[in-house]
């Protein structure tokens, strides 16, 4: 036995040495939180074959990139290709079919939609030059001329109509259904004019159109393994289990991107990806953990459109009184949750699942202040049943620090006398149980989750707060009316006000404990110039490499 313990000790020492060696590898491993503060380091870790030629860029080439810094020393084409690490291999490269990030990191560089989003996530024209709302249910798009797909097929209204019809078709089974389910048809009016029909007034149609990648008519059946789009990069090869590779599309209609080749590498183990980053084999590791910040040469983070919350089942008698739900919000010290559990890579959210850049954000609302005594008093005033067990459901391994957050919240609720129990389940079970209506047996009392907001629009939250919403356990008729108004009006000011009013109501009659707005964290190599986006998209055309 003594031998065993001494073995453990020595091994621990060896391990510690290893870790120290690892950590000391980069003397300049500044862990930088703010997106502005970029490298400035000498870049000693750059792979030897990347040093290449120093011929200055013509200057004209670098103009395209909107976010990449101008002073790229040498965007040399013979630089080692850019490598982005993701954890899971894409299930398909047909961008119309799926919506997981692992696929999107690649396909967003291959395919383009009629509309896109700029670096401030505002909707901007892409393959369409302009669009207008020509009747309550009709939108007319004027398409860009002279665009061709990577297979040589011209892009026109016919291929646009085909793309939209393909995606909304019943048999297609796209994971993006919920983004586009109000679109009922698309027709080519002439070669560069397209009409899209909706099944009602649809204010978010432009946002929905950003979710429909354009695909060619020829070869659409094989897009899952041979993607073809109009984007700045074209597909080269997919080495199963290893990576998927793309190269610059020299016939691109827009400005040519600075980086010639890139690949998306599948590395299941985050730790391995970070080691590869340190060794200069990878340039960008998507999604690192707050505690891994010291392991990356450069860390970038961006406040994302990701909001953690704990939804109430307001149909449960114990939680039906709005005062009880406000008290639950008061019982949680969100500041400390952000600082301790997320090492500062999060902030209390403003009691609404929107960022200030989004339509419908209410600037008058803020986090409900931490006040445990006040919470206890309010619960007593509302006659809260302190002996009743309330279950808090959290999925295992799904959300960054989800279990820890739930544990923290439960502890704070216990501190004000609430009898709380945590139920941790596998994600699919959690999803299934989460859909049980609030009035039925087995409904979740409290549900920890994150909301994302791909539309950057207050209406996206609909399904969580309306009486009939698929995952809603609250019913406030006024909120429904306001949400309906926001969804159907085409006047952006009316919509903005409607959502603001709805969030004001949900502040006093909360559907959830509003927790945090989360940051997305990235490990970045010293040669990569790039700023993360809050929409979690990765456009290689906006990136550059320094020699």
């Amino acid at each position, binding site marked *: 036995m003594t*031998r*065993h313990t*001494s*073995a*453990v000790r*020595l*091994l621990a020492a*060896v*391990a510690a040495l*290893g*870790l120290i*060696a*690892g950590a000391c*590898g980069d003397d300049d491993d500044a862990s930088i939180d703010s997106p502005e503060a970029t490298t400035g380091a000498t870049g000693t870790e750059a792979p030897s074959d990347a040093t290449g030629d120093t011929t200055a860029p013509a200057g004209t080439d670098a103009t395209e990139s909107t976010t990449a810094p101008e002073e790229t020393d040498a965007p040399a084409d013979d630089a080692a290709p850019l490598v982005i690490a993701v954890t*899971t*291999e894409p*299930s*398909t490269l047909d961008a119309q*079919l799926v*919506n997981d990030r692992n696929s999107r990191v690649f396909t967003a560089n291959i395919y383009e939609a009629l509309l896109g989003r700029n670096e401030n996530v505002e909707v901007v024209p892409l393959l369409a030059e302009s669009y207008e709302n020509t009747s309550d249910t009709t939108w007319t798009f004027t398409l860009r001329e002279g665009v061709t797909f990577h297979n040589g097929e011209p892009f026109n209204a016919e291929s646009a109509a085909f793309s939209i019809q393909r995606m909304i078709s019943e048999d297609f*089974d796209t*994971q*993006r*259904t*919920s983004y586009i389910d109000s679109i009922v048809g698309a027709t080519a009016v002439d070669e560069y004019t397209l009409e899209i029909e909706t099944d009602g007034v649809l204010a978010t149609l432009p946002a929905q159109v950003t979710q429909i990648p354009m695909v060619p008519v020829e070869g659409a059946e094989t897009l*899952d393994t041979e993607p073809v789009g109009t984007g700045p990069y074209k597909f080269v090869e997919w*080495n*199963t*289990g*290893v990576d998927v590779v793309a190269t610059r599309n020299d016939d691109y209609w827009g400005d040519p991107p600075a980086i010639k080749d890139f690949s998306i*590498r*599948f*590395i*299941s*183990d985050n*730790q*391995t*990806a970070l*080691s*590869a980053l*340190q*060794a200069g*084999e*990878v340039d960008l590791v998507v999604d690192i953990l707050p505690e891994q910040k010291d392991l990356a040469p450069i860390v970038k983070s961006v406040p994302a459109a990701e909001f953690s919350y704990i939804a109430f089942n307001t149909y449960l008698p114990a939680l039906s009184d709005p005062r009880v739900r406000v008290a639950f919000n008061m019982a949680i010290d969100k500041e400390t949750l952000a600082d301790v559990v997320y090492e500062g890579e999060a902030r209390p959210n403003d009691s609404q699942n929107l960022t200030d850049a989004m339509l419908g954000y209410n600037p008058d609302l803020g986090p409900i202040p931490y006040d445990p005594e006040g919470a206890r008093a309010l619960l007593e005033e509302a006659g809260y049943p302190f002996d009743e067990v309330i279950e808090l459901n959290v999925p295992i391994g799904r959300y960054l620090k989800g279990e820890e957050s739930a544990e923290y919240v439960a502890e704070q609720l216990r501190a004000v006398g609430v009898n709380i129990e945590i139920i941790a389940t*596998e*994600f*699919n*079970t959690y*999803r*299934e149980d989460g*859909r049980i209506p609030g009035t039925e047996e087995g409904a979740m009392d409290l549900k920890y989750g994150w909301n*994302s907001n791909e539309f950057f629009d207050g209406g996206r939250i609909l*399904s*969580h707060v309306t009486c009939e919403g*698929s*995952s809603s356990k609250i019913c406030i008729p006024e909120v429904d009316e306001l949400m309906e108004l926001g969804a159907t009006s085409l006047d952006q000011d009316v919509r903005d006000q409607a959502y603001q009013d709805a969030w004001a109501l949900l502040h006093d009659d909360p559907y959830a404990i509003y927790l945090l707005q989360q940051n997305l964290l990235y490990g970045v190599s010293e040669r990569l110039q790039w700023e993360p986006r809050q929409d979690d998209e990765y456009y290689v055309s906006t990136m550059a490499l320094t020699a």
Partner: protein
Amino acid sequence: MTATLIEPTRGLGFGARRRRSRSRAQLVLRRIRDGAIVLFLVLTAIFLLGRLVGDPAESLAPIDATQEEVDQIRANLGLDRPLLTQAGEYYSGLVRGDMGESFVIARNQDALPLVLDRLGATMRLTLAGLLFSILLGVVTGIVAGVRPGSLFDRVGNFLALAGVSFPYFWFGQILILIVAVNLHWVSVLPDGGPKSYFLPGVTLGIHHGGRLFQLVRSATLDELGKSYVIVAESKGLGYYAVVMKHILRNVGLVVMTMVGWEYARMWGGTVFLVEFTFAWPGIGKLTTDAADFHDFNVIQAGVVVAGVFVVLSNLVVDLLATVVDKSAEAGT
């Protein structure tokens, strides 16, 4: 340490000796039959467990899908049918070598070809692991057994214990940090070249070699204490002659069995975790991805292929054991 010795010897030394009289063909048939039964049981368990624990329809459905939408996806996958119907299709497919299509990770592609496509990568990694296990475990184990109590023996014992006790994927990460990140001797990520086998191979070698060291050392030690060695020495044979001639031959059988046993254990799981750590494009990485999304058919295909290799390695060990056993008998 002697306790661990019992385990692998069970099937080999004694068993082989008992069955010596039977024909080799009979043995092979028996082993294949046993293997098939084990595979059948494992596959049934995987089939049921998978369906109890998860639902690929949930993985495919949009995050805010309604129950109807999820039900529709489940129906499209054929997962809404009675369990017995699904099981019937599953077993009849197995007989035909058709393991169904991937639901999630490679939609609509046949599951078995997906797995077989990755077989080569995993196979090569297990062989690298085997090589390093023998280098790190067997050779050193014999030396340590011949010189018990020496510095070599003590250091070896200590390292072997460490190799066995610590999680090997953790060793893998440490190796990556030291050898790849700091020393830059090899790359972190496999590039298909021969150097790529070094780190994952050594990681497997540390774990399996540690066990082999312990077993081989004590087998050698046991053998040295036997009376024939004393007799041989008393007859005037030199110590090294005894070691080379008798001990190696007698220990050899045990060693071979143990090596085979460790190789089967790689297919039983360790190689898959090492693949995960080293981003190795083999079956393990594929099936862990599949498990994340409850992609039943791919998981099942992965288990079948791995299971076949476990059974095959055991079979080969048994056959070798009979061969060596016979020749040993003839030699004495």
